[in-house]
């Protein structure tokens, strides 16, 4: 079965009506997190989750630089140079927050005490492998806490654009970039669809409005299935 990647000029499916912005996607993801979970939100897009989560929810957000209880982004005079998230953006903390040192923060991560880690990726494979620290040929690698989170947190969800800047699907059969961890990913949240990784590969849990499976499949070079096709 041959599938076609989009051209290098722009990301495919730009005009799908229900395509989510990063903030919409973050809010959608937050809805899937049960109350009471302790959740690392890494760097980049996932950090938006703590800014958009509904105020009545009690999800405790962890930032690997020693913050348990990350709140909204800090604006203006509320900014404090020493209170930043892992993306180095100024933030607020919530009531009930705690500061820990870096070793204790990663002991929490590696020791399996976080219910979930949400992070970005360059590639996610249908076997749950993912890559997010080094692109061959690119200049400088950067691991950060991703490898620790991927092996340590109880679950890893990826929140990312479905296509890279060249318009190539980040979902793939096998990663070609250096791995961050093997078999870690459970779910992938993208602007167009939400996927679960099961023993049979990528299963679509949700397509945004105006998108159907066949259309999406044209741009994704690995088989994606609808949830009810599990047993076929």
């Amino acid at each position: 079965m041959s599938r076609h990647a989009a051209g290098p000029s722009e990301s495919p499916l730009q005009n799908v009506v229900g395509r989510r912005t990063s903030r919409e996607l973050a809010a959608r993801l937050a809805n899937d997190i049960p109350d009471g979970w302790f959740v690392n939100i890494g760097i980049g897009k996932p950090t938006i989750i703590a800014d958009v989560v509904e105020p009545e929810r009690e999800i405790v957000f962890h930032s690997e630089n020693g913050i348990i209880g990350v709140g909204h982004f800090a604006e203006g005079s509320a900014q404090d140079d020493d209170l930043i998230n892992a993306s180095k953006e100024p933030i607020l903390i919530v009531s009930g927050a705690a500061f820990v040192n870096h070793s204790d923060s990663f002991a929490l991560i590696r020791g399996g005490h976080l219910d979930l880690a949400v992070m970005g990726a360059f590639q996610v494979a249908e076997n749950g492998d993912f890559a997010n620290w080094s692109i061959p040929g690119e200049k400088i690698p950067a691991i950060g806490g991703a490898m620790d989170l991927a092996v340590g947190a109880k679950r890893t969800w990826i929140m990312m654009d479905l296509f890279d800047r060249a318009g190539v699907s980040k979902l793939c059969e096998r990663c070609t970039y250096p791995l961050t961890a093997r078999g870690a990913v459970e779910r992938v949240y993208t602007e167009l669809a939400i996927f679960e990784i099961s023993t049979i590969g990528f299963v679509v849990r949700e397509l945004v409005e105006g998108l159907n499976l066949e259309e999406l499949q044209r741009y994704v070079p690995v088989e994606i299935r609808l949830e009810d096709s599990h047993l076929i």
Partner: protein
Amino acid sequence: MIGKQVSSLAEAINGIHSGATVLVGGFGDAGTPVALLEALLEDDIRELTIVANNAGSGNRGLESLLREDRVRKVICSFPRSKGSVWFERRYLANEVELEIVPQGTLTERIRAAGAGIGGFFTSTGVGTELASGRETRIIDGREYLFETPLFGDVALIKAHRADRWGNLAYHASGRNYGPTMAAAAQLTVVQVDEIVPLGSIDPENVVTPGVLIDRVVKVEAGKT
């Protein structure tokens, strides 16, 4: 809403089974969760493996469990303790097993369990009979022993103050094993002197973050 407080000692220890490995905080009486340990006597929980600094201290807590023959094995650093007699009686009668571990190795093995460390090398115990038959390694010219993580099914600890998320602050040397054990068990239960509103423990001064805590029970001062 996250609410880790439970309203009774019975609820606090609910689900602890015979045969469990129980990490017990405290050094002497300081930081010992006496009320939680006494509560175990109310249920028919037996054959426990106890991981603690001492094999009892004073005449309650572990001492009661040993007296009532609830303990199969003690993993500890310093079994002897003034005012406690039952460990010695049971041990000399071969009714309880003892694994003795240097104190720093004991707490570091528990830390390893909670911190996702598969094992580590320490110089403590090198050249002693504790090293006999054990894996050793020379690293940068120094000899080390290999040590493995020590997990609990349950951790019972004591703190001074908790909020409803389980954030903890301790009192003086009552801190001891609490922060380390809290991370190393499937179920972590804390006995506290007081429960305070969320946000009233300064985030700079939280010693054990609530992420490590499953249940908090307030014990009136009189009830230890």
